[in-house]
């Protein structure tokens, strides 16, 4: 397939001058990634994918740069997918690939920051030539390792590390690798089925891309990628240029196991670029898995910036290019390759607060006050008949206000997960939820108010004789979701057993395990409220 330079130029020129054709192809790429997403959702078997939708799908060009991702996706995966694809390309050059090859990896430093997120990458062939990739990253239900992640001292304790490897060679699975995964995870059938769902989704995407190339008589994705990424990049550059040049600084507090940890960010806006430098942030932590790999830090940096700057532009590699991220190796935002990383959301979810706070004066109408964050815990134990149960409960804290809006409801931002319904939680556990209610007055007060936090109370199903334990790892026990521009902070999260504060007023949780001993014991979790914006009375 040789395409003359002349022809190539004309295709590129024709496309870039065609606001109709470009719109159509761009929408088509997004639709194809949505087809991939739908394939995963329907065929995966784990609750983390089926209920919480913790995955994403992307189409990339032959250099591993992102072109389009599924409309619904776990936001941080959108930067991760190109990152690990390019890493894969370094190890497996395009020339060595054959149709039917599929690659796998969960290296937290190249992928999504902890071992549970597995990337599946499939080269797209047109006439024996690799023209691009489809990539799906999904949170697996088990990757082995210790159950109480808060105790992890290094990543070796956290489960199976799958280095970048070929899962399929010319359509044939590597049985050694499959066997290795099967032997090292807790629910191998579920895990392998979810991986198969990712492989199937990538195949669907690859087939569609090939027919799109035929339809538009494009030799490959190169020109298209340049144009689409170029457009997205220009939009991002224009949005950055509208921010006054200067240095903006922000800070955010992470609740470490042994004390508070500071995240510091220096944002340099220079013409059309942004550099975010996290020098001065806390060092990596020896225990508890709250360390972020640089890839994960970058993902949690560009995602909130994209929300601020070009929320309506379809995302691709171009959106990332004008943004650079610096973090000192060995810090909590660029941890070294051996430390524990499983609970990295406890740190990464505070990056947006830092960025929004720093940019509050420059972009007052776009930033959002601090969010209450998602509170996830697990109920674990045995039913009276001896059968085990293990049910997650997710709920979002109150959202931060914006200059124009009070906090809009509850959700799990910066995660895009959804909650677990009361009736479904109860059906799967011998637990009665007694209350799920808003805590009036707990949202930060301001010209616009944060969404209040809420309370969930649970006890054992009376007469069930079940054993019930909760495993919690709450955030915002010591530090409130900050308000902006004089707006009040949101309320703290709280945990009680029979109205006794489990942090004894300190905000430090001694143990993540809570046991209900009798039918009268009540476990209460209060999710944090969101921050407010502006001073009371400032708005009409």
């Amino acid at each position, binding site marked *: 397939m040789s395409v003359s330079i002349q022809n190539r130029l004309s295709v590129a020129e024709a496309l870039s*001058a065609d*606001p*109709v054709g*470009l*719109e*159509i192809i*761009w*929408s088509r790429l997004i*639709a194809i990634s*949505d*087809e991939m997403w739908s*394939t995963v*959702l*329907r*065929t995966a*078997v784990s*609750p983390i994918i*089926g209920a919480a939708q913790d995955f994403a799908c992307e189409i990339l060009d032959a250099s591993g740069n992102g072109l389009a991702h599924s409309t*619904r*996706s776990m936001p941080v995966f959108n930067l991760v997918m190109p990152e690990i694809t390019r890493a894969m390309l370094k190890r497996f050059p395009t020339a060595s690939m054959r149709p039917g090859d599929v690659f796998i990896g969960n290296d937290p430093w190249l992928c999504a920051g902890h071992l549970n997120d597995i990337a599946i990458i499939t080269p797209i062939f047109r006439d024996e030539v690799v023209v691009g990739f489809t990539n799906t990253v999904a949170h697996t239900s088990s990757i082995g390792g210790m159950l109480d992640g808060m105790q992890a001292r290094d990543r070796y304790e956290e489960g199976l590390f799958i280095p970048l490897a070929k899962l399929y060679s010319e359509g044939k699975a590597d049985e050694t690798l499959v066997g290795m995964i099967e032997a090292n995870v807790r629910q191998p*059938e*579920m895990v392998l089925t979810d991986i198969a769902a990712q492989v*199937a989704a990538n195949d669907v995407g690859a087939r569609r891309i090939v027919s799109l190339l035929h339809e538009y008589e494009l030799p490959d994705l190169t020109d298209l990628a340049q144009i689409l990424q170029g*457009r*997205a990049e220009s*939009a991002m550059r224009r949005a950055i240029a509208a921010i006054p040049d200067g240095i903006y600084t922000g800070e955010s507090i992470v609740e470490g196991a042994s004390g508070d940890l500071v995240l510091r960010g220096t944002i340099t806006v220079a013409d059309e670029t942004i550099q975010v430098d996290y020098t001065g942030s806390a060092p990596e932590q020896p225990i508890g898995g709250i360390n972020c790999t640089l890839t994960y830090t970058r993902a949690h940096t560009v995602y909130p910036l994209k*929300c*601020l700057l070009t929320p*309506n*532009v379809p995302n691709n590699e171009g959106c990332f290019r004008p943004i650079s991220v610096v973090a000192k190796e060995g810090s909590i935002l660029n941890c070294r390759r051996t430390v524990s990383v499983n609970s990295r959301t406890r740190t990464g979810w505070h990056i947006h607060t830092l960025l929004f706070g720093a940019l509050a004066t420059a972009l007052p109408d*776009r930033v*959002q006050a601090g969010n209450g964050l998602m509170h996830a815990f697990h109920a674990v134990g045995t039913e009276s008949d001896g059968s085990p149960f293990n049910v997650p409960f*997710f*709920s979002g804290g109150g959202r931060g206000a*914006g200059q*124009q*809006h009070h906090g*809009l*409801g*509850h*959700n*799990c*931002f910066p995660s*895009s997960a959804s*909650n677990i*319904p*009361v*009736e479904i939680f*109860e*059906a799967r556990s011998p637990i*009665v*939820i*007694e*209350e*799920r*209610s*808003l805590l009036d007055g707990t949202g930060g007060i301001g010209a616009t108010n944060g969404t209040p936090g*809420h309370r969930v*109370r649970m006890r054992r*199903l009376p007469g069930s004789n079940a054993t019930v334990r909760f495993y919690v790892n709450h955030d915002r026990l010591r530090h409130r979701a900050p308000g902006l521009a004089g707006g009040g902070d949101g309320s703290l999260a709280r945990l009680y057993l029979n109205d006794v504060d489990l942090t004894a007023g300190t905000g430090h949780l001694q143990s993540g395990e809570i046991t209900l001993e009798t039918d009268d014991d009540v476990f209460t979790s209060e999710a944090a409220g969101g921050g407010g914006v502006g001073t009371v009375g400032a708005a009409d």
Partner: protein
Amino acid sequence: MPATASGPDRSTAPHLALSFDVGGTFTDFTLVDLDTGQVVAEHKVPTDPNDPATSSLTGWRDLVERGALRPDELTLVVHATTLVTNAVIERKGAKTALLTTAGFGDLIDFGREQMYDIYDLFAPPPAPLAPRERRVEAAERVTRDGQVLRSLDPEQIVASLRPLVESGVEAIAIGFLHSYLAPEHEDAAADAIATAFPGIEISRSSRVAPLIGEYERFTTTTADAYVKGKVRRAIGGLSDALHNEGLPAERDVQMMLSAGGIAAASEAIERPIRLLESGPAAGALVAAYHGVLAGRERVLALDMGGTTAKACLIEEGRPGLAPMLEAARVGRFKPGSGLPIAIPVVDLIEIGAGGGSIARVDELGLLKVGPDSAAATPGPACYGRGGTEPTVTDANLVLGYLAADSFLGGRMRLDVAAAETALTKLGDQLGLSALDTARGIHRVANEHMAAAARLHAIEKNRDPRRYSLLAFGGAGPAHAIAVASLLDIDEVIFPPGAGVAAALGCLVAAPAIDLARTYAGRLDRIDWSRIEAIYDAMEDEAIAALTASGIAPDAITLTRRVDLRLEGQYHELTVPFEARRREGGKAGSDEESLLAYSPSRLLASSFAEHYAERYGRMLTGLPIEATTWRLEARGPEGRVRLAPLPQGDADASRAITGTRPVSFQRPEPGFVETPVYDRALLSVGARLQGPAIVEEPAATAVLHPGDEAEVNAYGALIVRRGIS
């Protein structure tokens, strides 16, 4: 006694069946002579958004004036309506309160807590229809097993509700936790409320949507209560008005339900939320019917109207059903931004591309079409009613697909200059001529529809290329060939009366009701006597509802289905559940026959089969769970059955009324002088070749160069695609 359509007392006078479908933009009428099986009249009037009933009456009177409709000869009147959808979208329902389990008054504020647009920090969640100040908690609690943990106190409920009722609350939704399993508390509450506050509308979740998942169930029930009074008044009022117009007193209006069944107005009023997708369901049914008449087993229906397009997969004459839909999406067509309504509904995907969809330039300089619509007012620029934004209809006019003097059968003259002005304005921003802008709008709209239809098919593991595309709606036939080309579909069917086709769907539908109830458990642990009890109750309810529409009990077919999944999954597959023969005695009484019957093994193998068909393989090892038990009760098919038309002249040239230049992309982009056919003059067996324009009053079909078409025995134009 209620009248029936096919009652024994057939006099010598012709029997007429009338249907009308009140859509967002137009109200469509179809009149069928039941004795000859022929459509005797079709009609279309603009819908008055402020008073849809007026449009129904206007159209009725038009048909009477034409001499087509003789009200005393009507034996069947079926009505599809957007009344419920509009009430929910425009938030014009009753002042509604929600009575719910103590501790959960705020629950519907939480929703599912998911971001539906990951980049929009301020995307608002859909606001509950019962605001927080209108929620009351009942001191009661039932467990996951249906055991009472805390008894209901009727006096407490009445006392708590009284201030709200005194402040003007008109409807009360009752939603208690686990009521899908144990409805007793909701029933007791409803009784207490009805006694204390006579005349107030009441909806209970155990009746409206007895399914697990409290947010969805409570929201559905709240929406039901929200529209109940409005539906009762509107349908009652319309019925009275039609009787005043001469509809015989013993005939009553029947209603099209979202799942494609027909119910007596009295039944529909009891659970009005089931009317939510009344119109779209009628559209899917008429597509299914024309597919059957054309002998096609797999049909992709494309219904493109004024504001949206809808696509639906039909197999073996039946559209698929979905267990839920979203109403009133805040983020337009963004999934997750609407109110979840858990009712059985014809499974279709809605796309923001209709004739009125507005084209614009986005911040990247690309051409976008929809989802904003010019709707009926002001309408497209070419309507000359003050619209200045270019729409899909404006593009179609400039491209020659529509003509200024033949729109709506010539009753509405289109303003070409206004369309060109609007297109030029947009083209200037894009660097395109008005003509290329029009071409672009047409293409982008086609792409939207094709992409959505493809995704819809993929979600069901179906390959759209194996389907025939059946196009209808006012705008559908102008786009169908191009959409089929994008989907690589070879055959396109244009049913007759494409612009008003959905109305006919009301008439060909069987009276039917779909019920569902959650009772979850692993197949190997299910108490099967409980399942039989659930089906006994649902069957009694369904039979009572259908006999109220005049169906004889022995003419009712009952079909059971159950939703199954692998333990831990969140997505179910619905599989047939063969009913146990009851001759062995009362259900559940005979241990031995239950063992021999072994429903769990039957269902497990059926699930494995369906799973493999859909996903390519079955997993072993994981236990299978049942969640929701479904019942479909159907009356006899074909109360209206169209008869084949007489064979006519194969030469279509007599139907040519003229020619006009029409824009096509292939073989060469440009205008081609194209013959225009009057569809009414095309007889059965007529053959024609593209390029061609086939006009009927309410829609215009565009055949591209190389297409070959023939009129089948039922007046449908069957097109084999050429080079487009």
